[in-house]
């Protein structure tokens, strides 16, 4: 008998992946007896690893993540002192992910580079190309001309040359993003005033602040770039994410580049990638805090957040909304809304899960509460069962 034949016998006891693993790793020349012994061992190990039916894995996951969560510090960490880049970690980050929040406190990307660039070629230039350049970085000075009620901008020609942008491009960028203004060019001064004349100083101040944030060049939303040498290659860390535009750039290694924005990953790469991103992001935070949480717990949460084919937070608007039981939904948040909705739709609660059964004081369907007695009740034979019960209760 070959190893393959033996394995075929076990195909019902072991999952495909383990059989495949065995096929690869069992020595080619092995006696049947020995092979069987090894496989038996694997089967035993596999059975041991299986979760017992009726185990409350949901609540165990909740406790396994919740308890270490109480020990997490609320600190936001600094990036190993190299720069001033701040990243939310710890509890705030976990909450951000599990709530399925769309606007992150610190969106961030790890951009990996292709061959010649990852050794550090033109790294400064690449970094600059990625970074979103705002008008305030190109200007030497912003003046408020109180007499004319206008803002005067003096551009730094040296910086313009470095980046390779002309004055006219700057002006067109200003015109494009700020409405209701007049733009004049006077030597190297750009003079901007409101179309509607005003004598309110605060309005001009607001205009000045708005002009500072005008987008001129680079990849949008990439606020800050930082080339870092990690494991012998250059990686660009960014603050702000724009996965779609970054992946399109020719010097970027798209297979490894990541963002910490789960919704962006879902949009660009799909739901499976988003699920993996949730697992990785949460696991990373747990590791950083020195907490030992089994990755399977995180996977279960990530699965729950992604089963619907789109990422949903663990909130009353997210996955809780999808619960079948009215009482379970009502026990989470906004009970009035849930009960009103249910009464309008004539919903039926079948008391199939845990919370509802706690509410009506019945055994919950996990552990000892799940198995039932499989006896066929034939009328008349075990007869009068119901009547007896009634007598007793009275």
């Amino acid at each position: 008998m070959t190893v393959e034949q033996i394995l075929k016998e076990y195909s019902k006891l072991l999952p495909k992946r383990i059989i495949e693993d065995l096929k690869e790793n069992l020595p080619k020349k092995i006696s049947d007896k020995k092979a069987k012994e090894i496989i038996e061992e694997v089967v035993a190990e596999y059975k041991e690893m299986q979760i017992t039916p009726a185990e409350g894995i949901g609540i165990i996951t909740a406790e396994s993540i919740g308890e270490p969560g109480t020990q997490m510090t609320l600190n936001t960490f600094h990036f190993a002192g190299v720069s001033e880049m701040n990243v939310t970690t710890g509890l705030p980050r976990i909450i951000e992910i599990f709530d399925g929040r769309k606007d992150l406190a610190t969106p961030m990307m790890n951009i990996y580079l292709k061959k010649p660039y990852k050794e550090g070629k033109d790294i400064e230039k690449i970094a600059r190309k990625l970074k979103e350049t705002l008008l305030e970085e190109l200007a030497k000075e912003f003046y408020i001309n109180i007499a004319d009620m206008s803002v005067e901008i003096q551009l730094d020609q040296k910086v313009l040359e470095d980046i390779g942008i002309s004055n006219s491009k700057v002006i067109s960028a200003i015109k494009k993003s700020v409405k209701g203004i007049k733009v004049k060019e006077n030597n190297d001064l750009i003079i901007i005033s409101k179309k509607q004349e005003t004598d309110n100083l605060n309005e001009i101040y607001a205009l000045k602040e708005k002009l500072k944030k005008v987008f001129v060049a680079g990849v949008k939303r990439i606020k800050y770039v930082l080339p870092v040498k990690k494991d012998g290659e250059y990686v660009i860390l960014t603050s702000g994410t724009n996965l779609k535009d970054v992946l399109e750039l020719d010097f970027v290694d798209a297979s490894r580049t990541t963002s910490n924005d789960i919704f962006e990953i879902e949009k660009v790469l799909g739901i499976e990638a988003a699920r993996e991103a949730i697992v990785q992001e949460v696991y990373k935070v747990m590791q950083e805090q020195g907490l030992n949480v089994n990755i399977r717990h995180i996977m279960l949460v990530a699965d729950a957040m992604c089963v619907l084919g789109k990422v949903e937070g663990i909130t009353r608007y997210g996955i809780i909304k999808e619960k079948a039981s009215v009482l379970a939904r009502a026990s989470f948040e906004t009970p009035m809304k849930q009960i009103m909705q249910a009464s309008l739709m004539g919903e039926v609660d079948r008391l199939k899960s845990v919370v509802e059964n706690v509410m009506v004081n019945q055994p919950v369907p996990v552990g000892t509460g799940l198995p039932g007695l499989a006896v066929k009740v034939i009328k008349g034979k075990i007869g009068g069962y119901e009547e007896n019960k009634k007598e007793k209760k009275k």
Partner: protein
Amino acid sequence: MSADVFLNGKFIGQVDNPKEFIEKIKEERRKAELPSELNVFYDERINEIHMESSRGRLRRPLIVVKDGKPLLTQKHIEMIENNELTWSDLIKQGIIEYLDAAEEENALIAFSKEELTPEHTHLEIDPITMLSLVTALVPYANHTQSARLNIGSKNQKQALGLYIANYPLRIDMDVNVLHYPQKPIVKTIAHDLINYDKHPSGQNVVVAVMSYKGYNMEDAIIINRRSLDFGFGRSTYFRPAVSEELRYPGGLRDEICVPDKDVRGYRSEHDYRYLENDGIIFPGANVSEGDVVIGKTSPPRFLNGLDKFSLTSGVKRESSVALKHGEKGIVDAVVITETQEGNKLVQVKIRDTRVPELGDKFTSRHGQKGVVGLIVDPADMPFTASGIIPDLIFSPHSIPSRMTVAHLIELLGGKVGALAGRYVDGTAFSVETEEDLRKELLSLGFRDNGTETMYNGETGEMYKVKIFVGNMYYLRLKHMVANKIHARARGPIQLLTRQPTEGRANEGGLRLGEMEKDTFVAHGTSLLLQERFNADSVVLPICENCGMLAIYDHYKNKTFCPVCGDKAKINFIEVSYAFKLLMDELKSMGVYPKLILKTKY
């Protein structure tokens, strides 16, 4: 580059030379041309100047320094001593100024005169001004982590002492008075400044740093029974019982008296035994749980039209004030007065002597709080070679992780003070050094590190290690077991939900909360969980036709449904009363909660 200027958060203009500008503002302020409340702060990073004159900022005084020399000179100090100069004069002359948190960012403040350089802008008046009043009471504060100082300060605020000198004349809620308060041997300048010796709140005790049979693990302390007999930590707890003769609409009013036997809710003759003819207890009565302190009757709560003609309507309600579950004491004083509305007001002050017991809380002044773990007979306490028996045993494990070095130095300082018969100054940053203390201790005939040979009190054997023994100021905190102990097996339930009442005052149950419930679920012990939650379980007759609550008539032993009539099929279910209540509330909102019954098996 020109900087934007903001006054109280509003943009007011730009200046070309920000640094020059703020210097000028400060100059003007010191000349009293600008108000002394104005603070300026230049944020170089974002190139903005913020001026603040609004209220609600925390500010502190500092000596102005110019060219490395403080403006406050010896001449000024002499003038102050002769009462020729006041604090506000110094501020007007620009010698002392108040900085807020923002302006401090621009300042370079010297700790002492010696470290002044031309770059410095300010000098501390005294390093201790950095600390609050309570924190300044911690001796050797500069040897302890700041976090521990905070804890130590908070602990001192909870310590028992003489909270006010006229306490016998007052009626305060929930107060304690320590019986034999002492001045601390190791004190700080703050103790002198606030007249701490007029109202001390602790006692000097002999402390041995060692473990004792494990009864002082996890921060517990062990106390010598003899010390308690001599008065260590003994205190009196005062609590008032108050009752007012209220007036109600219709000329009805309460009456403070010994209630008649036909009053609704009459307790028992035994409970009223201490009341005098006016319905008030006499001073000196030794009362305990259930005894009535002020007898009172009230008119019935609800009067409807027909009650006027009913015979029972005249029956009054009993509303006396009695001692609650677990309370005891001696009546200290009775005060009969009137309220602003002219109602008779009776206040009875009850006093209870509290000797420290297992579980009472004590602390040193360094955030080293702990609970009494064991009270040991003096015969069983360890003793030193010279025969000293410590009053208190403190666990050495409390020290390393918390790094309260000051605790150990106070122990040493206290020992020197006690032996030399003097007070030791422990003011932060300007103390008698540890080295001096050690030398003095050596000259007093002790080991310079404060350790002594000790013997096991039970066997008489000598301990192999030398034990650190010294004197320390210990405080008794107001958290006492007698006020907190609580347990229940069965007891009162709430009217609305039929669940156990909440809180110690109501003899309530200990709640098995949401998270505790989760642990039952996680273990899969679902029948145990059901049993734990069936305190309010009821058996309800349900009509299978309409799914609503049916009626069971005990007399006729018959069930019927008020909606579907006698013929409807009715079955019994067992649910929690809270669920029945939920259904009732849904019905009241107009939602029809129909129960569909099925056999469970």
